[in-house]
């Protein structure tokens, strides 16, 4: 089973753009260790940056794979650049907006904008008299804001330059991906 780091696909423009979201929850066990309370201070649950990179890779990888109906084995080959300005925390939602920059038979380059929706912003605003009736709902809104960017290269490994052979089975796009595609009404992208 593949460990998925996106929860849902929210937008898809064929061959060009795919947007996915990731809700960060205290139910994720690794957040209890990253970082746990110790003698140096209180617990500080933060989503590891490596998992944010993986989330952008899964989003952009699905986009690249969808171009040829997931018949190609698309693997992350290079992190050209990555920037993340914040430490994502439980109660926040990350959005990965991936676009294909260039693509040919052997691979693709992608650019992903990472945005954050902080639900605690809305809660804070809702408790203020100026923005709501104080019940924590009315007038309480959050705004997406850009917090990072990811530039990734993907390889179609069956088209690798060295002529290496790989198993026929597509071990990259497994059932987990199909579940996410089905949830977004995009199952038709995965042709059998």
């Amino acid at each position: 089973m593949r460990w998925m780091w996106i929860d849902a696909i929210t937008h898809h423009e064929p061959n060009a753009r795919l947007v996915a979201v990731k809700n960060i929850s205290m139910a994720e066990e690794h957040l209890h260790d990253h970082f746990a309370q110790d003698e140096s201070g209180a617990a500080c649950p933060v989503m590891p940056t490596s998992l944010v990179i993986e989330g952008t890779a899964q989003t952009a990888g699905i986009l690249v794979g969808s171009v040829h109906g997931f018949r190609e084995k698309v693997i992350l080959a290079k992190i050209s650049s990555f920037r993340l300005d914040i430490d994502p925390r439980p109660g926040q939602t990350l959005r990965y907006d991936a676009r294909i920059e260039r693509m040919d038979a052997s691979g693709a380059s992608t650019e992903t904008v990472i945005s954050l929706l902080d639900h605690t912003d809305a809660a804070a605003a809702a408790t203020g008299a100026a923005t709501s009736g104080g019940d924590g709902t009315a007038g309480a809104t959050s705004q997406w804001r850009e917090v990072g960017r990811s530039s990734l290269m993907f390889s179609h490994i069956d088209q690798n330059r060295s002529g290496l052979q790989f198993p026929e089975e597509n071990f990259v796009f497994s059932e987990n991906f199909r579940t996410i595609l089905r949830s977004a009404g995009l199952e038709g992208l995965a042709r059998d």
Partner: protein
Amino acid sequence: MNHALTHDQIFDSVREILCDALGVDEDDVTPAASLTKDLGAESIDFLDINFKIEKKFSTPEKAFKINQGELFPENLTSDASLVKDGKFTDAGMELLRTKMPHVDYSAFDADRSVDNVSELFTVKSLCDFVARKLAA
């Protein structure tokens, strides 16, 4: 980017691309530097460089499109008529020259080793490739 570029302008652009793609210092990008041996390029970097060159030298009027295998030939070593005992045959060398006229073979001709073919790709060969293609 304007198609009427001087060699110095092309070199500056290629150097910028290589610094970005390979994370090397400007001083390391000399005309004679080999992309693999001196600048540490791996196979995926060749695709990255390919894409970056296309983007850099395209204009709204004319796309700078590099066909697959045009800049860096692929899968040549799987053809027995082109490679024998780990070295390029005369037919293999002829094909290399045809596919990559932008490369200097003077040192490689005596060696012909498949293992060393990636060292043919130098900064100068990239600049010459761009110059030829812009002039075409």
